[in-house]
């Protein structure tokens, strides 16, 4: 049993993966709480998938993934904002069209003969391939996100609760929503190397959604969310090590498991105590 726990740590790759997922899990789980409360799950997923051509482009040009991701996020965000301006009646459909187009463009690029091998890593990530410099980059991006969340916590809470109160309280609702989306973009950038384009949305939405099912106060929600993300990260990496499956997929699988368990627990609690506050 002890060996089961210590064996993976003998490998630098596993240890680095644990550190990386701890950073990413903390940021993703914290930002994710705001994604859930601002009902931005769909936008968050759109951003994560929409940046795919940026990633593939960077891989094709031999540029750093982070740079490609940043360009991809900006392009996706600009296009989504643009179509939403013109298609105000059906913003979701317009967003879906943009994201599907971008994602398809990325796949086309990825299938081109020039694309280097290992491009599937862009889709599913390479958690065990995390390098020291990637850890440093993740930490450098994560720190300001956490500081901003701490500093602006009350304002985010007030505007999420009641957009209309924003002006009277001196807080711009548009600015706060934009802030949450920007933090989502940064989190996606941090996570895309480790978890890939397809799975990174899971760490943003999964832990927070599970936590929301189990509590009706913000503070415990955020703490639970972080605990869930760290648990899934830890369990996923161990499972991946022993069962020899892809680490990113194992982590994502654990996130889904935690969400399902939380949903079951909340359904049971509601049946036995009639606690409606457990509802989403």
């Amino acid at each position, binding site marked *: 049993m002890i060996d089961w726990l210590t064996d993976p740590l003998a490998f630098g790759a596993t240890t680095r993966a644990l550190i990386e997922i701890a950073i990413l899990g903390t940021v993703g789980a914290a930002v994710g709480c705001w994604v859930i*409360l601002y009902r931005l799950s769909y936008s968050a997923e759109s951003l994560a998938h929409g940046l795919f051509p940026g990633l593939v482009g960077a891989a094709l040009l031999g540029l750093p993934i982070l740079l490609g991701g940043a360009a991809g996020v900006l392009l996706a965000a600009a296009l989504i904002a643009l179509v939403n301006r013109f298609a105000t009646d059906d913003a979701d459909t317009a967003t879906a069209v943009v994201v599907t187009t971008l994602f398809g463009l990325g796949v086309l690029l990825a299938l081109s003969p020039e694309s280097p091998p290992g491009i599937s890593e862009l889709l599913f990530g390479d958690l065990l391939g995390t390098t020291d410099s990637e850890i440093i980059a993740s930490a450098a991006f994560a720190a300001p996100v956490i500081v901003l969340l701490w*500093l*602006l*916590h*009350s*304002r985010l*809470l*007030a505007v*999420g*609760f*009641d957009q*209309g*109160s924003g*002006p*009277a*309280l*001196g*807080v711009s609702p548009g600015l706060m929503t934009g802030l949450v989306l920007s933090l989502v973009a940064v989190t996606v950038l941090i996570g895309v190397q480790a978890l890939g384009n397809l799975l990174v949305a899971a760490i943003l939405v999964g832990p927070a959604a599970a936590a*929301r099912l189990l*509590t*009706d*106060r*913000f503070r415990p*929600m955020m703490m639970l969310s972080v605990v869930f993300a760290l648990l899934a990260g830890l369990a996923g990496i161990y499972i991946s090590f022993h069962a020899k499956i892809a680490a990113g997929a194992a982590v994502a699988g654990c996130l889904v498991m935690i969400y399902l368990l939380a949903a079951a627990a909340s359904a049971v609690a509601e049946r036995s105590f009639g606690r*409606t*506050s457990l*509802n*989403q």
Partner: protein
Amino acid sequence: MDAAAVIAAHAALGYGGKSVLDGLEFEIPPGSRVGVLGPNGGGKTTLFRALLGEISPLAGSLEVTASISTVAQTDRSRLDYPVSALDVAVMGSLAGMPWWKRPGRAEKRRASEALEKVGLTEQAKSSFGDLSGGQRQRVLIARALTAEAEILLMDEPFTGLDNKSEARLESLIDELARSGQTVMIATHEVEQASRWDLVLCLNRTQISFGRPEEALSKPVLEATYGGHIVEIPGQPDLGVLPAHHHHHD
């Protein structure tokens, strides 16, 4: 008398350059209870939005000389949001606080005092979504009190309240006005408004403004509501709306 809290002079309000409410001409002294009457679409919410600075007058001027806060309709607030009554009251303290500051102990105390003032000390720790409609309304009033706003706007606060909550809210409004707060209440209840200090009748234009005895004549109400007026028995000069006219907008 103190300087007026709100002064409108030839003001016209609207959206995208198109006026939906004009002829605004009034002065509201501090500490008064003002009933803002009008049919759905009459311009009550538009006036409130202009007072809050969300839209600016198309013509004339609308001057607000004191800090202002609004109590939105509770129908619109989120019941699935993970906050307590106290959390909501504390939100008011953000008004006028620089962006890098976080509410601390002093703000929490102010919020608790506000909850006490609206009679919700015992519910401070309850989830906002678990409270009754009347209690939620009072939590939102507490939030405005924490913001230390001198002018309080309430947009149809009586909609959906039971009789007990309605009586409670009415006496709270009286109490706020006694302690110097200016309270402007958009309402359909002509009879209720007739008990306040001033009334402002709107129907796409200002129909009348003044003390209820003077400003709520039957012709005024007819112009305000377009003829759907019934008389209050024994008070032939004071009309009221038929009950079926009350609805959410």
